[in-house]
């Protein structure tokens, strides 16, 4: 945060939007709020939140989309939609976020009152970010403040802040609340209050109300001094804001000609603080005007020893010469002007070279991207130099709005880095590279899917061959023919009421034995013994026939039962064989997956083409911004160079004339350079 603040303040512009942006960054686009359950009721939602809380908006949005495609998220009501909208906001998808919040606000949508209320809030925020003040005001006015406060103090405070911001920009609410009232509604410990208070002072200044602005700043300074310590990183932010307030007070004193007052305020700004360069320069100006040239020179010398890291600090070499001249130390002034001229000359040459050799690679090399684990003051530390992060890498940190955390490695970019247009272009470039990397990974993955599916297809072919062989070995048609024969025989026997056909195995054996006995008896001589035996046989045979007739119904039922079971078994067999045949004939699930892989490959290639075009456009835009900036700096440096050379020549002439005059009139020598 401080780095961002630093970058933003190294350039001249500051004020409403700066403070607004900073304030917005405090909590990110969506404060999931007090109602967040401690534990996700649905793992799909939990996984999305895990990415969201790490600031991985792209991954979190993907997870929510996957969950939505797989049946939605259980147990969290409409809350995931709010989170998704917030994620879109942080991912720079304001149009999509707006559309989602509007969907939630549709009259026909069954949305809980609390969610609807928050959707109005977020929609207002979308409009605010899109700088549509009227729409933002209208949306924010639809918010039920009591309900919002019940649900989340954090959102309620932000709501007050946004309304205050709108009021400051001339779009006050219809309820007529003043900015003062909105500030008073915010607790003293709220950072939103501090920022709104500060922005109010800025607004007063822009309207020429300097006394009121001074009172407001003094009051804010006092308030910030009394607040209990915040936890980092908010503590750093609040500390930076207080220094900013002191700087503003100092500059206000300067503008009124109260140089002592300016010095008194500026000297409270830490030398290692975010605003120390600006404070030192302003202090030098104030001291100079107060007649305390020694203090002014001390401040400028301190600045001179630092890397002149921002374009506006390039005034320091000239200012030193000017100050020496004011102090009547003309030799030192001449020396300072000459050194300044040399500095500006080499700077001018370097800027020209940079413009000529400007490429994306050189630009990226001149930027220090901050990644997780970097110390606040040293992005890309010594060890990290070897593997310095580049745009598109997931380790590069971004703020809550996707802006890349980056510091200039080259002073000439410091001012440019402070501009919103450069930040947005860099954000786009970073995001596009990330998307390209993501698609590149999927490309590799899809290629491996292809191999996998091809292997599966080969294995499938092998299994099909084995199955066909197994089916052939079963000789299924022969089994079907035998089933048909069996059925036909049974039906014939039924038609003939053929008792013997339905005999059991035991009965068949008995019948065979009876037939054998009958045959034997027919071959025996006709005597009494044979006659008795034949009578016995007749009785046995009659009994057997009676048994067959008696068992006919039972036997027939058993045979029919077996036929039915056989029919069923054969039906199952036939169905399964048909299924197998169908499965073998079709491509199966594998083919469907292969079709999906192919379709995704086509989509992937199309998107890669689109991404390349967008990357090219973003790259051109970024380089144009840099080139314009370098051109402007080059012109400024040329101006400094001319002025410095002019001053040096003028002073050299003066000294020359002074020496000649002194040589001609030694009595006046003591009135020359007092160094």
């Amino acid at each position, binding site marked *: 945060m401080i780095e961002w603040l630093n970058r933003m303040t190294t350039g*001249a*512009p*500051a*004020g409403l*939007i700066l403070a607004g942006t900073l304030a917005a960054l405090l909590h990110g686009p969506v404060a999931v709020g007090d109602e967040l359950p*401690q*534990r*996700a009721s649905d*793992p799909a*939602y*939990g*996984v999305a*939140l*895990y*990415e969201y*809380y*790490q600031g991985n908006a792209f991954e979190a949005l*993907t997870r929510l*989309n*996957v969950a939505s*495609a797989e049946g939605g998220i259980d147990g969290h009501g409409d809350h995931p939609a709010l989170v998704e909208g917030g994620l879109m906001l942080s991912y*720079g*998808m304001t149009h999509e976020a707006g559309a989602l919040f509007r969907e939630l606000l549709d009259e026909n949508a069954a949305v809980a009152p609390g969610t609807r209320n928050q959707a109005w809030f977020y929609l207002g925020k979308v409009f605010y970010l899109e*700088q549509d003040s009227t729409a933002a005001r209208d949306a924010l006015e639809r918010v039920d403040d009591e309900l919002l406060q019940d649900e989340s103090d954090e959102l309620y405070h932000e709501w007050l802040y946004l309304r205050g911001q709108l009021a400051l920009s001339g779009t006050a609410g219809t309820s007529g609340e003043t900015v003062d009232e909105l500030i008073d509604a915010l607790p003293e410990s709220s950072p939103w209050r501090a920022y709104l208070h500060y922005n109010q002072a*800025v607004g007063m200044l*822009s309207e020429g109300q300097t006394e009121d602005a001074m009172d407001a700043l003094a009051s804010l300074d006092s308030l910030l001094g009394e607040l209990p310590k915040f936890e980092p990183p908010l503590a750093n932010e609040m500390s930076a804001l207080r220094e900013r307030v002191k700087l*503003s007070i100092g*500059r206000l004193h*300067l503008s009124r000609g109260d140089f002592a007052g300016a010095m008194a305020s500026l000297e409270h700004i830490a030398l290692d603080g975010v605003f120390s360069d600006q404070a030192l320069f302003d202090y030098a*100006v*104030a001291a100079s005007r107060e007649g305390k040239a020694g203090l002014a020179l001390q401040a400028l010398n301190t600045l001179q020893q630092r890397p002149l890291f921002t374009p506006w600090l390039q*005034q320091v070499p*000239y200012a030193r010469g000017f100050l020496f001249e004011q102090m009547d130390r003309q030799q030192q002034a001449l020396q300072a002007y000459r050194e300044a001229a040399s500095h500006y000359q080499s700077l001018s040459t370097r800027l020209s070279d940079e413009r000529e050799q400007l490429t994306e690679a050189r630009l990226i090399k001149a930027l220090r991207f901050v990644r997780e684990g970097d110390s606040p003051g040293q992005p890309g530390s010594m060890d990290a130099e070897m593997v310095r992060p580049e745009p598109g890498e997931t380790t590069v940190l971004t703020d809550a709005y996707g802006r890349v955390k980056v510091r200039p490695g080259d002073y000439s970019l410091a001012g440019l880095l402070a*501009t919103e*247009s450069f930040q*947005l*272009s860099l954000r*786009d470039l970073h*995001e*596009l590279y990330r998307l390209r990397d993501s698609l590149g990974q*999927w490309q590799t*993955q899809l290629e491996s*899917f292809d191999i*996998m*599916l091809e292997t599966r297809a080969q294995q499938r072919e092998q299994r099909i061959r084995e199955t066909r062989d197994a089916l052939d070995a079963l000789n299924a048609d022969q089994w079907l023919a035998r089933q048909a024969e069996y059925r036909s025989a049974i039906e014939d026997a039924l038609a003939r009421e053929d008792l013997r056909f339905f005999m059991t195995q035991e009965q068949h054996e008995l019948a065979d034995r009876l037939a054998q006995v009958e045959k034997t008896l027919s071959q025996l001589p006709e005597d009494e013994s044979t006659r008795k035996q034949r009578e016995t046989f007749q009785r046995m045979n009659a009994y057997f026939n009676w048994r067959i007739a008696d068992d006919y119904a039972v036997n027939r039922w058993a045979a029919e039962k077996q036929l039915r079971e056989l029919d069923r078994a054969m039906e199952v067999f036939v169905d399964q064989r048909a299924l197998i045949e169908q499965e073998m004939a079709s491509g199966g699930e594998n083919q469907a*997956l292969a079709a*999906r*892989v192919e379709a*995704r490959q086509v*989509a992937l290639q199309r*998107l890669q083409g*689109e*991404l390349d075009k*967008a990357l090219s456009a*973003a790259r051109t*835009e970024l380089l144009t*911004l840099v080139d314009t900036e370098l051109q402007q700096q080059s012109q400024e440096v040329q*101006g400094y160079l001319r*002025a410095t050379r002019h*001053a040096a020549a003028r002073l050299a002439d003066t000294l020359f004339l002074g020496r000649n005059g002194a040589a001609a009139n030694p009595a006046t020598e003591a009135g020359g350079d007092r160094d």
Partner: protein
Amino acid sequence: MMTLKNTFALHIVSLALAFWQPAALAQDNSEAETGDGAVSLSVEELKKQVIRLNRDLFILEEDLLYPASTQFAVFLSLDTGEFLKLDSVKLKVNDETVAAHLYTERQAKALQRGGMQRLHIGNLKTGEHEVTVFVEGIGPDNRAYKQAATYQLQKDTDTAALEVRIRDRSSDYQPDVAIVEWE
């Protein structure tokens, strides 16, 4: 052209005014809007399309690599993590390490805030399986903390999902590790 001498002399006023110029800033922002509006819109559209494709590819990957009948996933949650600074986790299935993770501060915080990490996704055949998790970190009184939990999973033909749940146990101010199954 104004000389640098004048510039410096007038810097008191010019710096202060530049600082207080909301109009100048508004102009800077409006330039940014018009300058990158078209690109931003196309970038937003691209983001939307890539997210959609990413979603489809994630689903395709799961369908392809982890069919529902064999899919087995393990999630990890931290509720609320006051008694444990999570350092690392190792997951074993049937005595074989299938996942190990070292947590960054950002990841640990994301878990503390209610996020849930998908620690592992893979395939398991039907039947009984032993799932064991080893959790390491810094516990109460800044002492090294290490605990394991085991779960006997009866895998059927539906997707199986387990959650390694690390909770603060208020009864003895110690962290507690448990494995629960999502139905």
